[in-house]
């Protein structure tokens, strides 16, 4: 039976923030993939504002969704004023691929 090795003493139950939850790629939860139609995008950035994953990069004219994290909730598509975000059914095998 495996036994516990002697661990150093005095270790508090403190977890350091140096391993962020960012390592946890949630993109594979996604079944719907939002796609932004750049030609119709007005750059209003409501998709950035309302993203519960905080995974929309708003630094360029047309926002870029980080598909490593996007869970496909569809809020961006629902809230987009010009309705330029479409949800497409995700192919399972590339769900976690970065865009």
């Amino acid at each position, binding site marked *: 039976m495996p036994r*516990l090795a002697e*661990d150093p*003493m*005095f*270790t*508090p*139950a*403190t*977890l*350091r*923030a140096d391993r962020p939850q960012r390592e946890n790629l949630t993109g594979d939860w996604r079944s719907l993939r939002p796609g932004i139609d750049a030609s119709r995008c007005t750059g209003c950035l409501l998709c950035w504002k309302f993203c519960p994953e905080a995974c929309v990069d708003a630094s360029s004219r047309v926002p870029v969704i980080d598909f490593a994290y996007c869970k496909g909730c569809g809020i961006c598509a629902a809230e987009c004023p010009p309705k330029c975000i479409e949800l497409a059914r995700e192919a399972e095998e590339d769900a976690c691929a970065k865009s």
Partner: protein
Amino acid sequence: MRKVLTGNQAAAWAAALASVDVVAAYPITPATQVCETLAELQASGHYKGRYVKVESEHSAMSALLGAASAGARTFTATSSQGLAYMHEMLHWVSGARLPIVMVDVNRALAAPWNLWSDQSDSLSQRDTGWLQFYCASNQEVLDTTLMAFKISERLRLPSMVIMDGFTLSHTYEPVDVPGAEEVARFLPPWREPSALDPKRPAAYGALALPKEFTRLRRRLENDMQRALETILEISSEFEEAFGRSYGLIEPYRVGDAEALLFCAGAAASTMQEAVDALRARGKAAGGVRLRVARPFPTYSVRALSRPGVPWAVVDRAFSPGSGGVFRQELEAALYPLSRHPSVRGYIAGLGGADVTVELLSEIWEDAVLDRKDSTEAWMEDAR
């Protein structure tokens, strides 16, 4: 400086002298006077820390969880139902490895309502990961509270300093109260390197997976076991500074004893009287006071144990369905000895019932017969 103090006042003085940063407390008989004395000491400038007058014992310990996590030295006092109400927090703060110090004034748990002393409140918290010190005098309450901060901070484990309700808490005794500088030399400020700090974001107490959880618990147990040594080290530092010495257990006339009384708390003073009285009648009586109950000083009691010399455990608390708590613990400690003596349990002093010299003498006389039946005896209140 010599003062005449109740046990409660001695506890409050110790907290003030220890330069506690945050007190959070809620009144309960018979510990209320600790809260009141701290308020007086704050008003008179002797206690310079903060005082949160919370709305419950659960919140008292929750507030100390917060304050100690932020790196503050913390203190509270409670009793009986109040201690029971803190129960989940007691587990939490030991798991979080916070060196909180609390005074518990022993009082029976209801129902029915009872205001008086027994050890059922503190002993029902024996599995919460707190060190437990049972005091037998008001001087010891003050001294142990001071030592408890140092022990707790070294081990990162919380301490419960326990005294008998009324017998100690409300009885005036002369107490040597050391000066603030002397105490500061013995007990330097606590510096917690991993205290909560916005400059160092971290999560404290987050969900741990089974492997990590087991390791953390293993460390807690290791440090609990190490505490026996640490308590003795700090006791000798204390003795060097203040001239008073305390052990894990306190044997009394045990050398040639034919049976040993075993108890904790103020009843141990009565036990010494009973031993003297029995000795005066030509009986080879001896007694052992248990001072530190968590961690249980297994090796210390084994060292005193001799084949054929029975132990008579006077239990002021019992676990319904399995009997006297200290009796069980002593049996467990002695059982691995190849020729272990018999351990006989006597339930006495529940809910403030008197533990008298006569009662203890009677118990000793029964135990020395070393009868081989294992039933625990229930003793009537002597009054």
